[in-house]
């Protein structure tokens, strides 16, 4: 009797907390979207910002955010996969690897403003990369790489030991067992984790203030040669991202519609991150089905 009522009360509490969280999330999302979506239009998404007049857009910033994301992922995904595979499958479990693991944890939880300052001192000034997309991508790598390593390592560790042994028992080499038996099983988790990490990169502002910069040169969207100075694809140009733009407009925007622009940009940012999340789940499932059955 008693356990039953305790059970019922606890269930009620848990369900209540669950609902509270969902309600909070919905309220937050609704608020941001209602406030911002009205301002979002094709024009807003594609035109460059105005500094003092109304009617500016977020075109270059949106592009910068996406491009920076791609750059960061090009750097971190291969490295993170490699290091994650190494940590989970090859590294001996000893003091040293435990220490590396600790550092990785610490790195990924570094305050991003500190990473930004570090980026300014080391990447921007010392290595002379200047305020540029590349500097921004490297700064983001500092906390994205550890995340990727951990995601990969955990996904591989979650593969049942018998699966790995079955591969090895067939006479497959260790590497082939990892790539053909274990990775397909862990890929959904890796892809989901990667895209969630991408969401964080996409929304990051503090680490980029001093590395990717707070301004964007006039971009010529007809020039796709990455070596040209005004080309959007040039990774060595300064680039203000969407999140940085929101911060800047909010704090020092002079345009009369600064508040609306910030709200609109926030809505775009949130929708993009949401799309990432949903896309991650979908892609994970599709990949899993593709890789594991049929052929």
């Amino acid at each position, binding site marked *: 009797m008693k356990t039953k009522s305790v059970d019922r009360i606890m269930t009620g509490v848990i369900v209540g907390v669950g609902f509270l969280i969902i309600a909070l999330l919905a309220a937050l999302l609704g608020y941001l979207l209602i406030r911002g979506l009205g301002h979002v239009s094709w024009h807003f998404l594609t035109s460059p910002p105005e500094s003092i007049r109304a009617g500016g857009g977020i075109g270059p910033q949106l592009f910068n955010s996406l491009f920076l994301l791609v750059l960061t992922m090009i750097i971190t995904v291969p490295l993170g996969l490699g290091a994650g595979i190494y940590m989970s499958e090859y590294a001996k479990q000893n003091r040293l690897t435990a220490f590396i693991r600790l550092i990785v944890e610490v790195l990924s939880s570094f305050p991003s403003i500190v990473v930004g300052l570090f980026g300014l001192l080391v990447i921007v000034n010392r290595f002379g990369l200047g305020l540029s997309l590349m500097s921004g991508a490297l700064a983001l790598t500092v906390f994205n790489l550890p995340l990727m390593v951990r995601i990969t390592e955990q996904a591989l560790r979650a593969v049942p030991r018998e*699966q790995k*042994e*079955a591969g090895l*028992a*067939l*006479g497959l080499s260790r590497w082939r067992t990892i790539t053909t038996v274990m990775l397909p099983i862990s890929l959904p988790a890796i892809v989901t984790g990667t895209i969630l990490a991408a969401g964080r990169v996409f929304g990051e502002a503090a680490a980029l203030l001093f590395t990717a910069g707070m301004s964007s040169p006039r971009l010529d969207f007809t020039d796709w040669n990455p070596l040209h100075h005004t080309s959007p694809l040039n990774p060595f140009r300064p680039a203000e991202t969407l999140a940085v733009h929101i911060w800047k407009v909010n704090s020092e925007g002079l345009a009369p519609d600064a508040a609306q622009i910030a709200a609109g940009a926030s809505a775009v940012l949130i929708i993009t991150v949401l799309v990432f999340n949903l896309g991650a789940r979908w892609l994970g499932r599709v990949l*899993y089905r593709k890789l*594991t*059955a049929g*052929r």
Partner: protein
Amino acid sequence: MTLIATEKTDARRTAVQSAGENPASATSPADSPSAAALNAGTGTVVPPAPSAPPSQPAPALKQAPAVTAQIPKPAPSEPEPSGAARTQAAPPPAFYTKDLSVFYGEKQAIKQVSMAFPDRQVVALIGPSGCGKSTFLRSLNRMNDLIPGASIEGEIWIGGHNICDPKTDVVRLRQKIGMVWQRPNPFHKSIYENVAFGPRYHGVKSKAALDELVEECLRKTALWDEVKDRLHQSGLALSGGQQQRLCIARSIAVKPDILLMDEPASALDPVSTAKVEELTAELKRDYTIVIVTHNMHQAARVSDKTAFFFLGDLVEYDETNKIFTNPSRKSTDDYISGRFG
């Protein structure tokens, strides 16, 4: 048949004795029968030439004199597999362990076990939980190496190679030793792919050859009729018993010589269990099988020889008949009759 087998056995024994390669075996009276016992299994395979592997595991008897005390007369069941063995062009090599010890860190899980596995016979490993059956089985294809802290000492001879030698190519080795786990663990791939995966990796590229091989292996495991219409569905969608047979099909697809099975039927219902047992009897014609089981009836039904382990020791190893009707050691008797374990 029987006669020939016996002759060969005798020939082996004299070969070993006259060669006198193992001085230890000359001194201890218990040794030569044991060498003969071990040879009884291997003798049908290895040509009875003096050049045969010299290091027969004579010291086996140390911990279990009772086992070795008796000279195995060719049991009625023996000539059959040995006959089958000789009809094959290249019979798979027999194998045996010599003073095999396995450690987890400091803890010794297997204590100097020496036993020979007769070619194309089923050997059952029995014993109470935690006595080291899985550890022993998993050492035979060096799978236990994967466990952090695990280490082995002693020798495992397979086809003239000591696979405990650090130079052993374990990847190649494992192709020759199939393995089946307690819980069915098909790959997260289609039924077809589960079987075709190994052979393709080892070089069977043509679609026709793969198709044929898949069908052959699925037929051998009596699964073909149940799955032939859905070869490209996930292997995970099968029932537990079907999955286990799929796993057996997968392991025989790479043409191993030896099959190791760790309680292959313990997670299955009686019907599936019966199928796996039938299959084991069937597969014995082509493979040397080592099977761990907690089911005494199963051991009695499927195996030719039975080994009783206790606390890491090989207590008794003999013909299954003998073990179940007239065991030499009291602890074996107690375990089999359910007085402990």
